[in-house]
Every structure is written in structure tokens, then in C-alpha cells.
């Protein structure tokens, strides 16, 4: 699977309601260890209802400068959410479907990764 095929794909819930598009994929480096780095497993997807393109991730960090870029970009990505891999039911070429009762998390990075 090539990630570029997944980015921008429409995301629907179990009832077929469109929730947005895949804006990003989040990985966590905690998989099987190797000589240099451990495996980076797919933690989940960032879904954005308005725009799937992301510019420097202002909507996922706490930066406020340079005004007004962060404010504008956060507004552009309003309603974005993060969904865990466990809540993904179908990964298709044209659509991603979430499981019934999926949990929407904040897409913000927690600071333990890179910001």
C-alpha cells in the first residue's frame, strides 16, 4: 500500500455519511525492533472535513505565530479529528469507512513526538 493513494481519500462512517478526507497518517515508532529503528506502525488517520492538504501542521500544534497564518489554517481545518487504526473498518481505493461507534480524538500532537 502506498500512502499517497490514501491521502485525500473520502472518509465515511458506518452509515455512509461523509466525514471528510484523509489529511494525514500518524505512525508511532514502537513496533518490532531492528538494528537502527523499530517498526513504525500506523496509529491512525487524521480526517479533515474541509481540506485534506496540510501546511506545516499548524492545526496540530500550539504555535500562534506568525499571525494570522496559524489562525487561518486552524480555521481551514476546523472539525478535524483523529481516528485510531482499530476504528477503521475498510481501507479502499476510493473510500475509507470507519467502524460503528468509532471514537474521534483530537488531532493535536501531544508534544512527545515532534512539533
Amino acid at each position, binding site marked *: 500500500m502506498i500512502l499517497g493513494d490514501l491521502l485525500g481519500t473520502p472518509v465515511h462512517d458506518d452509515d455512509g455519511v461523509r466525514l471528510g478526507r484523509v489529511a494525514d497518517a500518524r505512525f*508511532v515508532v514502537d513496533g518490532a525492533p531492528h538494528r*537502527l*529503528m523499530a517498526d*513504525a506502525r500506523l496509529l491512525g488517520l487524521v480526517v479533515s472535513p474541509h481540506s485534506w492538504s*496540510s501546511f506545516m501542521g499548524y492545526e496540530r500544534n500550539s504555535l500562534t505565530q506568525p499571525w494570522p497564518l496559524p489562525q487561518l489554517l486552524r480555521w481551514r481545518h*476546523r*472539525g478535524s479529528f483523529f481516528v485510531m487504526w482499530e476504528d477503521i473498518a475498510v481501507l479502499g481505493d476510493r473510500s475509507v469507512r470507519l467502524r460503528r461507534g468509532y471514537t474521534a*480524538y483530537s488531532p493535536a500532537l501531544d508534544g*512527545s513526538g*515532534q512539533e
Partner: protein
Amino acid sequence: MKTPRPLGSVPLAPVPPVAGQTLDAQLHLLDRQVLDSGGVPVTTVDDLELGAPEGEPETPMGTVIPPGTPAPVLTALLTGPVLGTRIFGGRPPSSRLIRIPWTDVASVGVVVQLGVSGQGLDADWVERWVRDKIIARIPGGRRDPR
């Protein structure tokens, strides 16, 4: 019909904490410069390839993923001739993309650092070809300027 997410006005819970470094593909990996173990630029990350973890069955595509299926992992950084597809859309065929195995990646920061020398990678074959076939034939071209 585009329907807004019903939880729009509700503050969302943070993602449960995880033990390892978190990497958002677009923020931390795509378009980052790749340096080899000697700090020499190799290429940039144009795309990423995912696959099932070692010893696990392939992640089903287009069909329902059984609960408990292990999440796919990054298997390779991809690079290749993507200028045209960046402008006009789509992507080159998978066979045209050059793969740098994830197991060769040493760290991810401002740049992606490899733990191997770039000399053995296919990613910078054009640069090596230009060096060996063109630059080397210019008088003085074989002399290391350092």
C-alpha cells in the same frame, strides 16, 4: 452529500498516550531530505510504502478489516520521478519508485538520517552516473576539491 461531523462543537479527547516517537507522515516525513550515514544528501521522501508487520498476513484492502488485525507498518521510503505527477496529479507506477527500506533509517528529525552509506542505494544513481560519466571526463573533474 457532504455532512459535517456531528461532534464538531464538542472538545475532543486527546489521543491515548503511546510509548514511541509519533510521526505524522505529511509533517515529519514527506518531502524531508534524506541524508546517508556520512551526512551526504541522498534524496527527498516522495512517498511512503506500508505493509503488514513481519510474519503477519497482508492488510485487506477494499474489504472489511477483521477486528484485531495488526496495523500496517512503514516498510520503505519512496523516491522517484514525481515532478510531473506532483503538478498534474496521480503518481508514477509503483515499479518506477525507488525504495529505501525503513530498516535503513536511523533517525527522523529535521532530516531523515540513514544508517547506511548512500553509495549502495539506488536513490542517487543519477548523481553517481553524472559524476562518473560526465564530471569525471572534465579536466580536473576527478580531483576532490576538499
